[in-house]
């Protein structure tokens, strides 16, 4: 039934996205990349996929400029799609950008808090998270002004409202603010895909619910793991967990009480996937081995790697569904991972540390 009318608004965009998806680098491409000896070789290998965007790079570019250029391509394609989108797709794509906006706003808040000239921060902001009123944020010189007159005008205002006051901006750690915003954003996004009349009951809501639930779980687990040994209290930590997801509510409750890696493993043991991740990471290694990405050998993967892997697998399977907005989300995520992969490979080549070059995640 949903296929009947989807193509009226979304057919073209879906087609384009599927075309973009086909231009993603494959395992073969990655193999070629890992054989490269210099960054120039990498550039050459990337030229079929990234052609124009890499052309302006000087010989032997730095890895960060390479990453910037590849991001530029993602942004350009995203902007093109956004220009074509109407109705619920346009709204959906806006939601996609909110995540980046949160990062940008957090950056600007940091700048304002430390009374820096925030104008120079604008160019450090992620281009996908750019919104029209963002330069206005720079006008505010103190945090109260920022909160009362500027943040209200941003698309993120609803995420600030109710959970953060302007005193909070001043006192709380910027990371907590960022994660609170992100939690609100995820919940809002989840509500949007499940309850919006246009999306309710469509494959979009089905697929996106799964994706977002995974995202929520991942954040909850990561926040828990990363907060060990910091001043973040358990109550505060609990407030950062999104109120939905595969682990919600029992799992998140247990996460909020976890003191160490075992506690986290116990909390997620209800979910088969996460449990197997924790088993693979190896409980024996203790907390230290969790975060360090593939610490010693190339074959042992860190938890973060596995989450990325899982995210990529979900994103890949999204393309098996038709008539859904979720392909856009999946494409953006795949593309981001690709940029990370390229950066990683380039970094390994630049630093002559080839032994762990195979640490990228390729799903095609």
């Amino acid at each position: 039934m949903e296929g009947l009318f989807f193509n009226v608004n979304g057919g073209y965009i879906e087609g384009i996205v599927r075309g973009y998806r086909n231009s993603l680098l494959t395992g073969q491409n990655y193999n070629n990349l890992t054989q490269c000896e210099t960054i120039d070789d990498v550039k050459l290998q990337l030229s079929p996929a990234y052609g124009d965007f890499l052309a302006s790079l000087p010989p032997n570019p730095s890895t960060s400029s390479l990453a910037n250029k590849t991001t530029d391509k993602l942004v350009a394609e995203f902007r093109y799609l956004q220009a074509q989108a109407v109705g619920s797709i346009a709204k959906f794509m806006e939601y996609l950008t909110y995540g980046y906006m949160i990062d940008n706003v957090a950056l600007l808040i940091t700048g304002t808090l430390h009374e820096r000239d925030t104008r120079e921060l604008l160019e450090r902001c992620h281009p996908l998270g750019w919104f029209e009123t963002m330069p206005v944020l720079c006008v505010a010189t103190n945090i109260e002004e920022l909160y009362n007159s500027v943040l209200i005008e941003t698309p993120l205002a609803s995420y600030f409202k109710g959970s953060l006051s302007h005193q909070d901006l001043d006192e709380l750690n910027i990371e907590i603010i960022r994660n609170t915003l992100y939690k609100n954003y995820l919940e809002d996004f989840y509500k949007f895909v499940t309850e919006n009349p246009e999306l309710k009951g469509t494959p979009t809501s089905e697929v996106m619910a799964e994706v977002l639930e995974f995202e929520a779980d991942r954040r909850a687990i990561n926040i828990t793991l990363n907060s060990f040994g910091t001043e973040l209290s358990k109550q505060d930590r609990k407030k950062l967990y999104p109120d939905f997801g595969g682990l919600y509510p029992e799992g998140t409750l247990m996460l909020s009480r976890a003191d160490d890696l075992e506690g986290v493993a116990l909390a997620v043991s209800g979910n088969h996937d996460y449990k197997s991740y924790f088993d693979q990471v190896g409980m024996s290694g203790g907390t230290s081995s969790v975060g360090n990405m593939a610490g010693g050998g190339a074959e042992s993967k860190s938890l973060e790697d596995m989450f990325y892997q899982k995210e990529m697998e979900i994103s890949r399977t999204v393309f098996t569904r038709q008539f859904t907005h979720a392909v856009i989300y999946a494409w953006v995520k795949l593309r981001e991972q690709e940029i990370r992969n390229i950066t990683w490979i380039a970094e390994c080549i630049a630093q002559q540390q080839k032994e762990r070059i195979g640490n990228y995640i390729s799903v095609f």
Partner: protein
Amino acid sequence: MSGAGDREAVFPTRQSLGLMKNKLKGAETGHSLLKRKSEALTKRFREITRRIDEAKRKMGRVMQIAAFSLAEVTYAVGGDIGYQIQESAKQARFRVRTKQENVSGVFLPQFESYTTEGNNDFGLTGLGKGGQQVQRCRETYARAVETLVELASLQTAFVILDEVIKVVNRRVNAIEHVIIPRTENTIKYINSELDELDREEFYRLKKVKNNKQRDNDAKELEAASKRRGSDKENTADDPGATDILGEQEDQDVIF
């Protein structure tokens, strides 16, 4: 004799000879002391050179690992966190204090690093993702900075020691090749001058003695001839003999 080498401008007297001899002795003692100091410093210097070599190699390795862990952070966080880290760091966690070490009278500064505990300004960075990589990267860089501090203290010691060794060696060489030869020259000169004076004195005495001898001889001769002349006058009046006598008497008056 005095042209053979430069010497100090002294009067060749016995007093200055004594002074010079003292000076030579002092210079020799100083020379051996300085030589020993220079050897001690050189030993230290070589050790420092070796340690610098080690530290530099270590730094190469550590910096490589550190740069790589930064790459890991970039991969895990998926973005630039540099600004956020810069802004959230309020207090130095890693600090350096200096000490002084005394090596044969040379003060070498030594830098010592220590970390203030419980100061974790960006402990929450990467809370959502990549937090552990950030912490790990920080630890790796802390180790890298430690190596740098060690290297810095070695390098400073290296530079200072180098300077000091140069100065000491210059002094040793100056004493060995300038002051000691010059003093020796001076002593030789004074000795030779004194000898010369001695010889002159001796000759003079001899001359005086000779003269006295001759005078005595002449007087005796005169006396003898007078005695003989009076005998002759008494016997036969000889005018020639009287003339000679008169002249001699004149000469005697002159002398």
